[in-house]
């Protein structure tokens, strides 16, 4: 596991909140695998990925994120993302992340609206 990737999960009602900080790169595979096991174990109806504003995300990390989102999407769970910088919001649209997840401007909006 990349020592620089910090992913932790909590639950809030029917939602799993996955907080991501540090470097999201190709070395983050184990961290994403752990997050996958964690949300499967909690039986949530939806997932909100909250990125720390200082998180560094490169193409290797985007590839893992897309894989993670595709796996969650296949289970027909709702996915929200928040905490993205303006630049990464643009990248999310470019690479197709927004096909799998709704992007919210704040955690509160994500938690309040994802399952509606």
């Amino acid at each position: 596991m990349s020592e620089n990737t910090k992913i932790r999960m909590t639950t809030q009602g029917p939602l799993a909140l996955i907080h991501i900080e540090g470097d999201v790169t190709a070395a983050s595979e184990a961290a994403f695998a752990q997050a996958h096991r964690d949300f499967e174990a909690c039986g949530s109806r939806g997932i909100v990925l909250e990125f720390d504003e200082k998180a560094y995300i490169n193409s290797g990390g985007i590839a893992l994120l897309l894989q993670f989102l595709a796996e969650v999407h296949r289970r027909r769970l709702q996915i929200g993302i928040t905490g993205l910088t303006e630049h990464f919001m643009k990248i999310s649209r470019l690479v197709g992340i927004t096909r799998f997840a709704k992007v919210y401007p704040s955690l509160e909006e994500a938690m309040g609206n994802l399952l509606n």
Partner: protein
Amino acid sequence: MVESNKDGSDMAVTQEGRSIELVLPSEVGYERVAMEGAGAFARMLGFPSERIEDLKTAVAEACLNALQHGNRNRPGAKVRVTLTFKEKAISVRVMDEGEGIVEIPDLPETEEAMIRLQPPRGLGMFLIRRLTDAVDFNEPTEKGHVVKMVIRREGCTSLN
């Protein structure tokens, strides 16, 4: 240092022709040194924040490709990054000691990867293409392989 106008034009004139060069070891993580250096250079030249972020991502991804695929993380192999400001644009050359890119995907293999639930490939080059105003992935040189990119101060950065 000359104060810039809102659009950075005064500073741009005084900095015309300026160039910086960075030499990186072939070790993952050093692409961020080039990324931050490129960002600082563009800020000095009065580039808007959106273009600075485009440049930083493009430089980081080009360096990552160079050190991982070009130099194959060989100890001792270097990645040389040169940024030159001219005519309201920054030209970036990223040179590795490899033989060039054999296959340049038009699009990342996102769809297929999603079906197979495997991480897509080619995202780095895809991002470089979309975030820069011009790119040549395979400029031949006597000393190695060069990726050349151009980022204009007022560039496209569209979602086309």
